[in-house]
């Protein structure tokens, strides 16, 4: 302790505690600056989030309603006969009914333009009705059909009437006709259930998400069936049974890395191995689910291991102490306690899989398919790939449909994440 005696520490500076020196004020200011930076950063994140949802809702909300026109259609036996069903002049019949609603339209010269007002799918609505009930031939029925995309957008205001005619997709004549139909009370704008019940279509006013919803359902089902048991099995083995050696260490590193491999690489794997080498069908939800299962498995393994680790060893020791075998301990005591954590991780993994797009593109789940898949081996699209297809389509109506599809997808995701958060808070235990 000799060296302390010669030391000269600085003398204590006796200043008042209340008096603020400029130096302190300067240092305090830095606190505010750092805090302000933090708040700005959070404001940026919140702002972008708000902008994202606002722009989706702004463009997407119009797709949740659809402009329809109600026509009194005379099912003309001259055009449609029982013998030639399902073929026949359905389009002409519908067009005639429309012209009847538009006194200003000239029957001979403007027939084509008038026909463009209603969706190309209108004739098929009528056809399906008549095929189902041939006795309609010769009668006049009231038929409500969707307007074509351009007129739908015009009515919803997405196409401005102020735009010069040359730049507008609907000419002045068309605007006048629409006004005429509105004045006649033929135009309605009901909720667009077709968005969920129709399959994909080339025409935006007819396109719906049914095929994509069914496809995503199959994909997630297959993904869950494979990834959930395999993931839990692997996690239990690694956490509870594996000897701590180089091999189990390697497996662990491997799984952590697998969780960070870009998703497009899994798509390449699926394309080369599942489709090209094993000859599995293209665009099939089965292959999509298989691929996403490989991606989701590491997430489930990591979550399960964390949940197992959180169960205190005293429970294991207690069960072992009464003579249970190691597997009885795990399956009867540890696993039930870890289940909420495992389920939370699994739901989050499945939510990721639901939004995953790139691997599905590579296995062809972006095909144009106009019917819903009836089994996981039929060609189908999934919600995210459907969004990708629609986002790529030039028609104006697909912009709002894309936003609407995204809102549907986000609804599912928020529901799944909400469920995960609920599970976590409801069953979380603090040991």
């Amino acid at each position: 302790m000799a060296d302390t005696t010669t030391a000269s520490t600085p003398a204590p500076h006796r200043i008042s505690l209340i008096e603020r020196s400029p130096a302190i004020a300067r240092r305090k200011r830095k606190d505010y600056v750092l805090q302000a930076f933090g708040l700005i950063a959070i404001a940026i994140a919140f702002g972008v989030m708000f902008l994202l949802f606002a722009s989706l809702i702004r463009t997407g909300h119009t797709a949740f309603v659809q402009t329809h026109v109600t026509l009194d259609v005379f099912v003309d036996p001259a055009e449609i006969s029982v013998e030639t069903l399902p073929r026949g002049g359905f389009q002409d019949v519908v067009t005639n009914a429309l012209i009847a609603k538009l006194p200003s339209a000239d029957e001979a010269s403007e027939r084509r333009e008038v026909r463009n007002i209603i969706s190309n799918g209108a004739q098929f609505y009528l056809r399906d009705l008549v095929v189902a009930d041939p006795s309609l031939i010769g009668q006049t029925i009231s038929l409500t059909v969707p307007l074509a995309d351009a007129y739908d957008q015009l009515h919803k205001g997405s196409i401005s009437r102020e735009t010069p005619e040359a730049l507008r997709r609907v000419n002045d004549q068309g605007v006048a006709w629409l006004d005429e139909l509105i004045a006649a009370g033929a135009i309605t704008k009901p909720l667009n259930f077709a968005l969920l019940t129709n399959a994909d279509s080339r025409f935006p006013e007819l396109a719906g998400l049914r095929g994509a919803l069914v496809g995503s359902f199959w994909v997630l089902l297959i993904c869950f069936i494979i990834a959930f048991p395999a993931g839990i099995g692997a996690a239990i083995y690694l956490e509870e049974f594996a000897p701590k050696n180089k091999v189990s260490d390697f497996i662990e590193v491997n799984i952590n890395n697998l969780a960070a491999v870009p998703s497009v690489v899994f798509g390449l794997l699926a394309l080369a191995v599942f489709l090209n080498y094993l000859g599995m069908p293209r665009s099939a939800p089965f292959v999509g689910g298989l691929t996403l299962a490989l991606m989701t498995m590491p997430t489930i393994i990591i979550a399960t291991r964390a949940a197992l680790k959180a169960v205190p060893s005293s429970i294991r020791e207690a069960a072992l102490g009464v003579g249970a075998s190691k597997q009885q301990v795990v399956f009867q005591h540890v696993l039930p306690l870890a289940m909420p954590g495992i389920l939370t991780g699994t739901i989050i993994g499945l939510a990721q899989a639901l939004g995953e797009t790139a691997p599905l593109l590579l296995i062809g789940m972006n095909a144009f398919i106009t019917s819903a898949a009836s089994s996981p081996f039929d060609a189908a699209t999934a919600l995210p790939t459907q969004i990708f297809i629609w986002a790529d389509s030039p028609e104006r109506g697909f912009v709002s449909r894309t936003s609407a599809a995204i809102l549907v997808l986000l609804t599912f995701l928020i529901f799944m994440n909400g469920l995960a958060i609920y599970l976590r808070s409801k069953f979380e235990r603090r040991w």
Partner: protein
Amino acid sequence: MTLLAFIILFVAAAIGYVMNLRAARAIRDGGSALHSLAGFHGMFSALVVLVPVFVLILVWLALADPLIQRLVAASLPEGTFDGLGTGAIQLIMAEINSLAGGRVFGTPEQWKIDAAERLVAYERNADLALVVVVLIAVVALVIFARRTVTTEFRARQGSEGIMLRLMASCAIFAIFVTVAIISALVYETSKFFAMVPITDFLFGLNWEPQIPIREDQIAAEGAFGVVPVFLGTLVIATVALTVAIPVGLMTAIYLNEFASRRARSVIKPFLEILAGVPTVVYGFFAILVIAPWLRSTGATLGLDVASNTALAAGSVMGIMLIPFISSFADDALSSVPQSLRDGALALGATRSETMLNVLFPAAIPGIMGGILLAVSRAIGETMIVVMAAGLIARLTINPLDSVTAVTVQIVTLLIGDSAFDNPKTLSAFALGMMLFIITLGINVLALRIVRKYREIYD
């Protein structure tokens, strides 16, 4: 028929369980002491039936169809495929398959109809064979399992052994996936390098993967220099990280040091939502909002901004990475021991001084790991760039220009094309290989740093 096979399997497993359970109980009721509980004897039987037959059905399903396709192809008249490319052969097979499925287009040739009939017959036979094989197998296994029921048989050890091996194979499956990825990539890439020299690929400054489809077509020969493609990825990733790192770190610092408990409980779930938004949504956001806005802003500033500028894809990708980086940094800051924070505060350090001089430097390894993982995600991110970045590879580092990215090329080269015999499609695998190696390298490094860091303070 496949469903029938599964039903047979599960019914047989149930029967096996009940049979062994009853047999074991009968022995017990007869007064003898069993080694294992009766339930374990049942479980043993069920597992002995389920596991091998389940694997059998899966292998059968995976292999039967490709095998049948090959048989049908081999049975076609000699010389049918002579001089045809992969595409044409696939077309013929597709037509035969549609005929077999009952979808007739036009009037097909007789040999195609014959082949379709053979295909249907093979498929029917294969299904029948599967059911028969499964039936035989389950009966044999149930009988075998029934015979094991004795007082000495260690059914618990037996069934637990099967369970353990089952779980171990699940763990090994993860390695198997990695091996499958690597071998698929290596195999297709080696085919590519047989057509295009590896040096041309690695050092070429020109990327024009369009190749003549017909022999007589006058088109570019196709150039496969990866440098501009990779440069594009780097430009976009740099933009993304320029957005994500400062915003993410500042968010983490605020959450860790300044936010009240209640603010935290609002901001954290909100960031989780942001992290859960699928990338295809971000991609649409980029083309719907960000790119037009950048263009109009650029126009008012007198800048020439390309319509699919790297700035749009990059900044949206940056937004995607904000929650990723902030949660990593928050974790790293939280795992700095309380004693260091106390030490700094007790010296009279202000909160910002504590954060910037003590906590942040102490957390840097953990934060670096998170940033590296973010870099790897930025490089491997696909949908945002596919939707918002360009297709043409340009040798530029100007973020206002349109650039392409590795993942964009992979997706566009492979969408709607499955003939694996030309350099155009195979080059996608070479790109994928490169992507895999680079991201793997970064991930291994990052995970190692994070792991080391956790060990220091745990």
